[in-house]
């Protein structure tokens, strides 16, 4: 095992993260970094596409995008004039479970940023003309998505892995579900779903914890949790019993994108770390792990071929993605299947597991060097309730993973004969333009 020497005091822990909860249910996390004259703000509210009516999928996302289009205190023009004049940035979007925000400013401009955030979340006006402007932007993004081989292969993969399930549907919806959304739908979504209860806000940068709490208190303290929205649970999903193959034809494309995989562990599952270590060996370490080595380095079939483990609260997915010439599609699929077969039939080597552990631990200071990196990590801690000392315990958690656990976990989740395999590109069997 290679020795990685890290001063753990550089990493956030219980002694330098401040966490408090306002009476209205807002959780505030912060960590000061006085060597930085800027701040990063991020967080979420507890509503997302899970609350969308199926025929109006994309409602939560549409609502989030409209929050900065006008508020009681400022018009669209005034909001962005304030932000852009001071070089601040501010963005919102919705995922399945949450509607999230993130923003960045010089520390001196944090009060302004907090006021804009509070107005956006609490007092948006949803002007009619902006509804149509944002709708046109969404429709254009759908038209561009329909031509994007990587996004289409991904979307088809999610649809087949999570049939009739919120995880199987795109959070931003489809043209036919965004077209019927009216202003009333947006207003009532906002009124019935946006609540301080369960809201999380993280501030990291050149500011003290007490100043952060004061600012949040001032902007959000009087927001009463009048509504108690019902939070739909999500149903669990069975993993595929045999392989499912689907191809989306998009004419005129030079490259075909491929996604293959199955379910993975949820974030707090005991299987998570063995799967994460295994995933790194399979398709991330160095130049995209074993799969990158076989598909890109040895066979020269693809510019990229790598794996990802996506773990959420109750479910997860384990995926391989690659971009290949249409002629090489089947060859790439076969190579990936044979790598997965090897991965589930024999343990990884000592060198592989040591390298990966060393990589996981050694990369922490890099993740944490910027305010944005620390803020994202604190949000992660809160979202999955990992504990404030999580990043200090992390090395021990990683070190405890064994080769046997990696193999057992791989066998539990990955079956080379039961994968969802999707691709998007020109019709199968048609040539690209490489001889």
């Amino acid at each position, binding site marked *: 095992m290679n020795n990685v020497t890290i001063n753990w005091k550089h990493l956030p822990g219980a002694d330098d993260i401040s966490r408090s909860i306002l009476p209205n249910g807002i959780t505030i996390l912060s960590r000061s970094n006085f060597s930085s004259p*800027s701040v990063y703000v991020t967080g979420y509210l507890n509503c997302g596409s899970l609350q969308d009516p199926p025929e109006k999928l994309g409602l939560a996302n549409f609502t989030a995008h409209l929050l900065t289009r006008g508020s009681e205190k400022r018009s669209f023009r005034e909001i*962005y004039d304030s932000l852009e004049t001071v*070089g601040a940035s501010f963005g919102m979007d919705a995922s399945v479970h949450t509607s999230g925000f993130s923003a960045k400013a010089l520390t001196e401009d944090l009060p302004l940023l907090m006021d804009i955030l509070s107005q956006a979340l609490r007092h948006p006006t949803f002007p009619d003309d902006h509804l149509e402007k944002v709708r046109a932007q969404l429709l254009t993004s759908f038209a561009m998505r329909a031509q994007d081989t990587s996004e289409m292969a991904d979307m088809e993969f999610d649809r087949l892995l999570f049939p009739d399930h919120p995880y199987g549907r795109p959070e931003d919806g489809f043209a036919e579900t965004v077209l019927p959304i009216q202003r009333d739908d947006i207003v009532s979504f906002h009124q019935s779903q946006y609540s301080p209860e369960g809201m999380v806000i993280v501030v990291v940068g050149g500011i003290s914890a007490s100043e952060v709490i004061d600012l949040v208190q001032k902007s959000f303290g009087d927001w009463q949790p009048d509504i108690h929205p019902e939070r739909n649970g999500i149903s669990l999903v069975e993993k595929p019993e045999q392989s499912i193959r689907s191809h989306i034809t998009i004419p005129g494309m030079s*490259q075909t994108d491929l996604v293959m995989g199955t379910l993975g562990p949820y974030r707090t599952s005991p299987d998570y770390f063995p799967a994460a270590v295994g995933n790194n060996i399979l398709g991330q370490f*160095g130049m995209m792990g074993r799969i990158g080595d076989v598909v890109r380095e040895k066979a*020269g079939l693809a510019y990229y071929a790598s794996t990802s483990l996506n773990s959420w609260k109750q479910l997860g997915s384990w995926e391989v993605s690659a971009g290949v010439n249409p002629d090489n599609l089947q060859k790439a699929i076969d190579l990936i299947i044979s790598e997965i077969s090897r991965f589930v039939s024999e343990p990884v080597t000592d060198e592989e597991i040591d390298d990966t552990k060393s990589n996981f631990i*050694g*990369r922490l*200071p890099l993740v944490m*060097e910027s305010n944005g990196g620390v803020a994202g990590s604190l949000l992660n801690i809160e979202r999955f309730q990992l504990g404030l000392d999580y990043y200090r315990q992390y090395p021990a958690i990683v070190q405890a993973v064994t080769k046997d656990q990696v193999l057992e976990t791989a066998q539990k989740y990955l079956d080379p004969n039961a994968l969802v395999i999707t691709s998007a590109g020109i019709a199968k069997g048609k040539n690209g333009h490489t001889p």
Partner: protein
Amino acid sequence: MNNTFTSHRLSNGLLVHLKEIHTAPLISQWIWYRVGSRNEIKGKTGLSHWVEHMQFKGTPSYPAGVLDKAISRFGGIWNAMTYLDWTAYFETMPADHIQLAIELEASRMHESTYDVEEVESERTVVISEREGNENIPIFRLDEAVQRAAFDEHAYKNEVIGEMEDLLSIKRDDLYHHYKRYYAPSNAVLCLAGDFETREILEKIEKLYGGLKNEETGNPTIQPEGAIEGERKVEVKGPGETVFVRLSYRAPQANHPDYFAFTILDSLLGGPSPMNMFGGGGISNKTSRLYQALVEKELAVGVNGSLQPTIDPYLYDITVTVHPEKKAEDVLVVLDDEIKKLQDTFVQSDEIARAAKQARAQFVYGAENITNQAFWMGYAEMFAHYDWFEEYVDRLRKITPEEVNRVACTWLQADHRVVGIYIPENGGEEA
């Protein structure tokens, strides 16, 4: 913060920039070579980028597959990029493991293997990268407009190269390109982070001091002047979305007009990102073109792009046209907005605002060691490190008269390329 900056040139010409930053136990190393698509000739386009790929294929001391594992093992990140004027490689590592990165960059400056089989397997990887780009409508439009914007200069080619060249380039073409341009006198080595300057400089002297410049005398490259006439380019391809691109000849980075042009760009299309890592992100919703096009529902997105280069390159404005509107309507408004800048002086507070936006971006970018090391070398590729150090001050000093003069000089309708991407609603089978 106690940051010391040191610049030193070795006797073989290698320029070394070092900046101590002790906020995190990290070091980022960048090595920059003055070679990119600018240095390529017809029939051999894409050489610089492919050479960059080959530099990951091993040296006698660090065989292929050993390098990437060695970096990853310590939690480091590394990558490389090739552009018009330069090729750059970086490694960001925990401070106590930087030795490895320093040794490997010295090794691959002069002894990369260029094994024939590796060249062949990388050929299909590079072709695959190009095919991925071709899937994107904006790449297709960009390629056509760039080609129309230059008669002779190599800036006319995409960095990745022409497909026919990628099919015909040989191992020796790559190796000669490498040997010619990967020389100490053609490189800048930059380190930023948690180290002692004297100690690092000794290591660098030891590893690089003995390297020689094998081939000297790079061919002279003739810069290209104004675009003659208005050139129109239409690209047809799959999709449903229309894109419009206007390209004007732009001043090179060390041209006296460059900073006034930067203000112009910021007013028209919004502040351009200054950081390669962990910065940027200021929106452009109050910019003139956003207000005139997106707010008026003629477009769903617009941005401008001015890039610092050695020779005059291009100023691009790209518009994503509203699904119910036409490219022609967009062009009328673009011309109108440019005319306003030529007819009327901008306010001085608009200039102050652009300068503050740049300052904020520098602050965000400074959090990131990789980005700090990036800035030191990047500026050397087309000017000097001072160029970056003085950036915000120089923006502040620009006057409304200068912005007006730059708009009149450089943004002329009879010296530009007008590109339109025409979607074929699904396109044709290849």
